[in-house]
């Protein structure tokens, strides 16, 4: 009886799964075209899955091992089960292999089950609570079914009762594992995830690469939408990427806006996009809601505007673009790209940048800086430093990119400290002076691609007039944009953050520094230096050279928590329950450090905005400048210096 029923069940399930797959693919294809290497991607997929994705998953050893056992066991068991029970290849070796696969899967599923006994809040519940049971049923059923094949049990053992039980088990198992894969069950992640890895929009991320620069919008193409209004305005592989989500909630746990009680949860956002691409409401979402927004009140479909239907605008504007979600995502989904795409539509088409957004963008257009300061005052901070300007000295080793921090009195201290360091190392450097413009970072992240491109093109034009070996900047945002986002417009430069450059200078013995004596120090990794550009080591090397042993925070390096200052978040200023910099300051206080070393004007401003008493905030350049030993100079100068000290 089972011999007849089993192949029917298996092949029926497979056929329905294929039907579901075709239907799902049709949903993705509603998206816009995207240039992807279809075949090459598919060929590269196994490696991306087993190496790149595993690297991310393996940060959590428990889950990595569990997943290897469960998924490995399942894939093997599924293939063998189709051969053995579907095509009736009742081979003893195959039987043993299938037994092994089901045992492996069963053991893995036990651990999945164990984790689901008391799941952390970040995990989605609902159908996901059913999954471990389905896994156990699938593996146990096929184990028992295969015992006769391996010759361990006589045919027809157990009689009708067992046969009926097994038939139910198979039906349950294949429904969840085969049908669920393409008809929207929890196992969808395996099907969509595999294809997402194959046709990822940032293929450069695989094989140890890094791709963090936002993709340019073609403004000359009048037929293309300016950003994303409806789910179908995403590219098809973005839609596919949303479908790959496993709802593990690693993004939610890392998101600073979620922790601050702002109405953003990256996991929910991705699930809402899934609702958008398939049509429906968010009532079935079984995870944490956007803080302060109840579940079940939003709905959408591929042809309906996303904002104020599926997602509220303040959700999109809460993001600091810190990339913590992308860094944590085991499926390598690109949350930030999606958010910026939707912001682009709001800014470029609707003119709906919240709070001070509109004014900042107007200022950038009219004065080339977000504060609306007179452009002529850009070099006031260096009035007494007699800096060389590129226009007078068109060929130098280092072009010092000052950034808009030039207008901020706190940041001017950092800039002056860095100039002191450059002068001490006798670096041949110059600044652009009044020819410098905002890098366009904040405009781009507020969705104003047009202003970003205008600023970028004019900066590239200016830079093209001069010869320099590298650009060095104290601002990780300018650093990131110059390094990773100007290339699309023809600006290819060697760009370094000042911490990297100072680490080089110190390593080369160009700087003479004494040991730092100001007390213990912790280091805050800026998102745009760390996660965006992988520079975790240089700032620490600089601090080590000053004799500082960094008291690391729990969340440091690639897990560093954002200061709240990125992505235009201080401008759009979406209210939450607490402020992100306050949470970061708590992280800092936990280390017991008296000072926190930073390398970003935004981080400095955000952290200094925390009420005292709190640790002192010092830019790395300030720490180095304070530790500089002035080169042995003629006696006369030394005498004057001592007079100044006593005076």
């Amino acid at each position: 009886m089972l011999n007849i029923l089993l192949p029917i069940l298996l092949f029926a399930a497979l056929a329905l799964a294929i039907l579901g797959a075709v239907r799902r693919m049709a949903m993705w294809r509603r998206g816009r075209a995207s240039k992807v290497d279809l075949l090459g991607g598919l060929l590269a997929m196994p490696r991306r899955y087993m190496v790149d994705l595993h690297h991310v998953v393996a940060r959590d050893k428990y889950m990595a091992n569990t997943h290897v056992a469960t998924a490995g066991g399942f894939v093997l068991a599924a293939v063998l089960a189709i051969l053995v029970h579907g095509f009736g290849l009742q081979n003893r070796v195959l039987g043993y292999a299938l037994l092994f696969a089901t045992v492996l899967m069963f053991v893995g599923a036990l651990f999945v089950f164990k984790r689901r006994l008391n799941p952390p809040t970040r995990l989605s519940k609902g159908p996901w609570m059913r999954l471990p049971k389905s896994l156990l049923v699938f593996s146990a059923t096929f184990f028992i079914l295969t015992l006769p094949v391996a010759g361990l049990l006589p045919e027809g053992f157990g009689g009708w009762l067992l046969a009926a039980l097994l038939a139910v088990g198979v039906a349950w198992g294949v429904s969840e594992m085969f049908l669920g894969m393409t008809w929207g069950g929890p196992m969808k992640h395996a099907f969509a995830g595999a294809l997402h890895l194959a046709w990822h929009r940032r293929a450069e991320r695989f094989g140890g690469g890094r791709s963090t620069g936002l993709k340019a919008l073609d403004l000359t193409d009048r037929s293309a939408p300016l950003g994303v209004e409806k789910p179908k305005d995403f590219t098809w592989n973005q839609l596919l990427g949303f479908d790959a989500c496993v709802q593990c909630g690693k993004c939610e746990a890392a998101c600073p806006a979620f922790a601050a009680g702002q109405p953003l949860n990256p996991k929910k956002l991705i699930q809402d996009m899934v609702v958008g691409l398939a049509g429906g409401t968010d009532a079935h979402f079984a995870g944490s809601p956007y803080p302060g927004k109840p579940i079940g009140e939003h709905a959408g479909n591929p042809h309906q505007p996303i904002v104020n239907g599926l997602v509220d605008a303040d959700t999109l504007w809460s993001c600091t673009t810190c990339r913590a979600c992308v860094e944590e995502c085991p499926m390598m989904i690109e949350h930030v790209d999606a958010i910026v795409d939707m912001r682009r539509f709001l800014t470029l088409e609707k003119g709906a940048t919240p709070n001070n957004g509109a004014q900042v963008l107007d200022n950038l257009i009219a004065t080339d800086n977000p504060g609306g300061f007179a452009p002529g005052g850009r070099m006031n901070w260096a009035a007494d430093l007699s800096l060389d300007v590129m226009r007078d000295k068109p060929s130098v080793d280092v072009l010092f990119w000052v950034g808009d921090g030039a207008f901020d009195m706190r940041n001017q201290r950092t800039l002056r400290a860095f100039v002191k360091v450059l002068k001490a190392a006798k670096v041949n450097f110059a600044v652009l002076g009044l020819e410098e413009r905002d890098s366009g970072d904040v405009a781009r992240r507020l969705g104003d691609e047009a202003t970003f491109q205008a600023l970028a093109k004019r900066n590239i034009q200016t830079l093209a007039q001069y010869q320099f070996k590298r650009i060095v900047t104290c601002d990780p945002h300018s650093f990131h944009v110059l390094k990773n986002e100007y290339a699309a417009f023809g600006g290819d430069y060697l760009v370094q953050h000042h911490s990297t450059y100072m680490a080089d200078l110190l390593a080369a013995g160009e700087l003479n520094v004494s040991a730092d004596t100001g007390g213990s120090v912790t280091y805050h990794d800026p998102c745009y230096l760390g996660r965006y550009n992988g520079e975790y080591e240089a700032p620490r090397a600089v601090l080590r050279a000053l004799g500082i042993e960094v008291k690391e925070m729990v969340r440091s390096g690639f897990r560093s928590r954002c200061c709240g200052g990125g992505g235009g978040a201080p401008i759009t200023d979406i209210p939450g329950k607490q402020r992100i910099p306050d949470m970061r300051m708590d992280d800092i206080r936990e280390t017991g450090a008296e000072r926190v070393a930073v390398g970003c004007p935004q981080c400095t401003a955000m952290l200094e905005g925390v009420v005292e008493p709190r640790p002192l905030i010092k830019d790395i350049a300030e720490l180095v400048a304070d530790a500089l030993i002035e080169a042995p100079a003629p006696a006369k100068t030394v005498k004057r210096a001592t007079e100044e000290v006593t005076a």
Partner: protein
Amino acid sequence: MSIATVALVSIGAHPASGRARRAEHDARAVELGLQLAGDSLHVLHAGNPHEPALRAYLGMGLSELHVLEQSDGNDAVPILRDYLRESGVQLVLAGSQAETGEGSGMLPYLLAEQLGWPLVVGVAQIESIHNGVALVLQALPRGQRRRLKVRLPFLATVDNAAPKARQSAYGPATRGEIDVEAVEVVIDDLSTQGAFQAAKPRPKRLKVIKAKSGADRMKAATAKAAGGSGQVLKGVSAEEGAQAILKLLIEEGVVR
């Protein structure tokens, strides 16, 4: 409320950089017009139709902007007057003062005079228009408001008391069309013969703070301006009234 409403716009200049932009007050006039008339608002500029800053007005969601083409130094008043007279417009909104050119703030007064229309300055809101009468909220100093009933047609100017102009978006700004109309050019003698020179800030009077306490300072900042020596003329003949005004003007040195 589909009445022919026109908003007059000019090219502005950013106060810090001097770069061309949409003029702050004119943008508020457009905003007021959009709130009042929606898509049927007719936005009009007299000047260079190729100025990129004009597109910032289109970015507020206009599909079309009408330009009466003329070059700098031409007088905008006569062509605007003729245009408005011929088009049967009922309500004209404008910023109170241009940010570039002469920027005398005289244009609305001259236009109103030549059209023979009333002019309402400092409009904060136009509440309703019924049967040819508009209910207008006019802004007075120190946050005070005065509700006026004005018969159409009339001309209204707005300043910072009017609703803030919406954000100008790139998409509509690039898509919007600029409809150019050739007009007979009238040379403005004042701006072609005279020479422009930067205005010097007038020396400020020293403000003597007499307040001793915070409460006093608060009072000084919020209290109504005390007229003091003013006099109210009631029930006098027109001749007597005119005499009194002339006397005051002579005293103040306005009429010599």
